[in-house]
């Protein structure tokens, strides 16, 4: 088991190096002079020389790659051209928004997707099955941003003046603000403190922050604002999870050990929930990691529709604004995060499936 985990971790190292090389290459391939991009079109030759020297751009390409890797390892992604702030600070600020949205969406997708898949498999070819699978097929084919816009129209316009009305965007209602826990607790951490980025990062998880500060008004309001974006974002993963659960469940239900469980005298409900489900969930767990990718793509679109200042929206703004350090830094961090999520999923898979331990 430990061996498996170690081997799996070692295997990700070349992949991580590959990610760094690819992002480095992409950054160098971006058309345009980094100097004029950073200093503006009218930068003088001498100013540019100085800039290139300062940024190490005059050194051989492999040295630049080395410097870049070292910088990334230190968490230094350079400064945003547009905001003149470190990319890492921007990331710490934006990540919580996206993670919060993604986690809620994935929870929603799992809580609804798995039971729907089980029900579909157990009642194969029934009306329930047909309706669920039609919905799932439509779900995977749904443009997330279109669904988001339609949900906004439905809840903000059509349901206006009803109790179902929901604000089409933002994290909190106007007039409300989430008080960071370190301020609420009077910890007095200044903006220059070494701890500041960390506590700021944590307090930016509004749900978590409002729970630990017992601010249930903010908690409720934040949740209410998360309903529409997380619903839109969860559609595709939900549909995929439902479909995988169904097909995996059908496969498991035809296995010999299910027949054994029935022959033992287990009631059908227990056969499904105890003997079949645990086996059927194994393939579902493996695709959860891949859903992180789907969720990210969805987050770029969802955040831009619901005016949420998350990683996806910032990345998109950076692309429109040609803010290359931000694009590069965000891309690296998201790719590493994606690899990490899949690593965790694979290792936890090994914990669930006893057959992997021996290998």
């Amino acid at each position, binding site marked *: 088991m430990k061996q498996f985990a170690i081997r799996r971790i070692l295997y990700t190292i070349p992949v991580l190096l590959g990610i760094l090389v690819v992002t480095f290459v992409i950054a160098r391939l971006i058309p345009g002079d980094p100097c004029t991009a950073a200093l503006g079109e009218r930068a003088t030759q001498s100013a540019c020389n100085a800039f290139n020297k300062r940024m190490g751009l005059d050194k051989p390409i492999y040295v630049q790659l080395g410097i870049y890797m070292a910088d990334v390892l230190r968490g230094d992604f350079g400064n945003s051209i547009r905001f003149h702030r470190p990319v890492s600070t921007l990331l710490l600020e934006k990540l919580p928004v996206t993670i919060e949205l993604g986690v809620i969406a994935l929870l929603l997708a799992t809580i609804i997707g798995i039971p729907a898949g089980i029900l579909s498999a157990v009642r194969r070819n029934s009306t329930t099955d047909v309706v669920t699978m039609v919905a799932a097929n439509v779900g995977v084919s749904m443009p997330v941003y279109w669904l988001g816009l339609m949900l906004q129209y439905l809840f903000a316009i059509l349901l206006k003046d009803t109790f179902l009305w929901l604000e089409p965007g933002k994290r909190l209602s106007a007039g409300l603000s989430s008080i960071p826990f370190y301020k609420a607790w009077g910890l007095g951490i200044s903006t220059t403190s070494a701890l500041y980025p960390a506590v700021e990062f944590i307090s930016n998880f509004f749900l978590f922050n409002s729970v630990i500060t017992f601010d249930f008004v903010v908690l409720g309001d934040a949740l209410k604002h998360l309903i529409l974006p997380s619903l839109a974002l969860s559609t595709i993963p939900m549909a995929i999870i439902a479909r995988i659960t169904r097909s995996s469940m059908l496969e498991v239900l035809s*296995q010999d*050990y299910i027949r054994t469980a*029935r*022959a*033992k*005298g*287990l009631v059908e409900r227990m056969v499904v929930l105890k*003997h079949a489900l645990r086996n059927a969930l194994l393939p579902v767990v493996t695709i959860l990691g891949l859903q992180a990718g789907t969720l990210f793509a969805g987050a770029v679109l969802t955040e831009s529709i619901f005016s949420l200042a998350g990683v996806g929206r910032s990345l998109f703004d950076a692309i429109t604004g040609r803010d290359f350090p931000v694009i590069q830094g965000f891309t690296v961090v998201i790719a590493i995060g994606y690899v990490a999520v899949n690593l965790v999923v694979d290792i936890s898979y090994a914990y*669930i499936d006893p057959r992997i331990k021996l290998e």
Partner: protein
Amino acid sequence: MAIRKRKPNGSAPILEVRNLTTYFYTEDGVVKAVDGVDFFVRHGEVLGLVGESGCGKSITSLSILRLIDRPGEIVAGEVVFEGDDLLKKPMADMVDIRGDRISMIFQQPKSSLNPVFTIGDQIVEVFEIHEQADKEAAWEKAVGLLRLVGIADPESKAHTYPHQLSGGQAQRVMIAMAMALQPELLIADEPTTALDVTIQAQILDLIRELNEATGTAVILITHDLGLIAEMADRVAVMYAGRIVEEVEVETLFKQALHPYTQGLIDSIPVLGAVKERLNTIPGGVPNLIDLPPGCRFAPRCRAREEYGLSICTEVEPSLAEAKPGHKVRCWLYEDHSGHDAPLKPREAKARKKDRP
């Protein structure tokens, strides 16, 4: 091939299967896997159910426990167990019988155990289902059972997962699970087919010991007549979804009546005997969707041609007592006056061509 000594017969049947009919409704048509099967099992006896693969013997056994899944369905018949028709019982009562009064072991022992639970847990579960036993006592009993079925070091083996066992060990675990509550009837569906020859003998010995020690009746399903000779008291021979012969095991080997059974016995290789080639039955099992009219064995039957019976391809014979205690489904032993007409020579010739 040692023929096993018979138990005194005359005791009442514990299970009686009457006109059991199980069909599978597939895209290609209705597969008549079990089509009007009748047999019975006496208390404490070992009944062998023998036939080629695909003849419906496994489906018969699954039908007894009502373990048939869609697209299969038990269409007709009665399965009378200790006076009650199991097919008429509500599912809740049926579930109580499974694993407690009738239990079952299968052909693929390794895949018949759930890969994500330890074997100890899987045995304990039987006690939990039927006895609401407390976990610790049940675990002790499970370890005891593992020891009983000959698993070495049962205390630690109970904590292992099925993939860590050999096929033989897995089948022992399955037997332990099946025998946990000392059922009145054990259905063993090809219990040794997937195992090595040496392991086969050990598993058969175990089943026989348990049969003798506990008085559990056994239905042994196999395609191997050698096994039947060693294990069974009585035999039912199945062909294409029907019982074609049913008799005490000694009589079967001395004087089989049905041409199919005779063919099966002839095709057993005899140690020491030098034959130019093994006698085999020509042709294969008929398509269970599109069955031949008349006797289902007729297209492969040599006796039919030797005796020039044309009724065989037209009307199906019934399972009738040819001699006391010896039932057979064949026109050779049934009165077919009024039906019979000699085979036309051309037809006979054409049929011969089909033979390999």
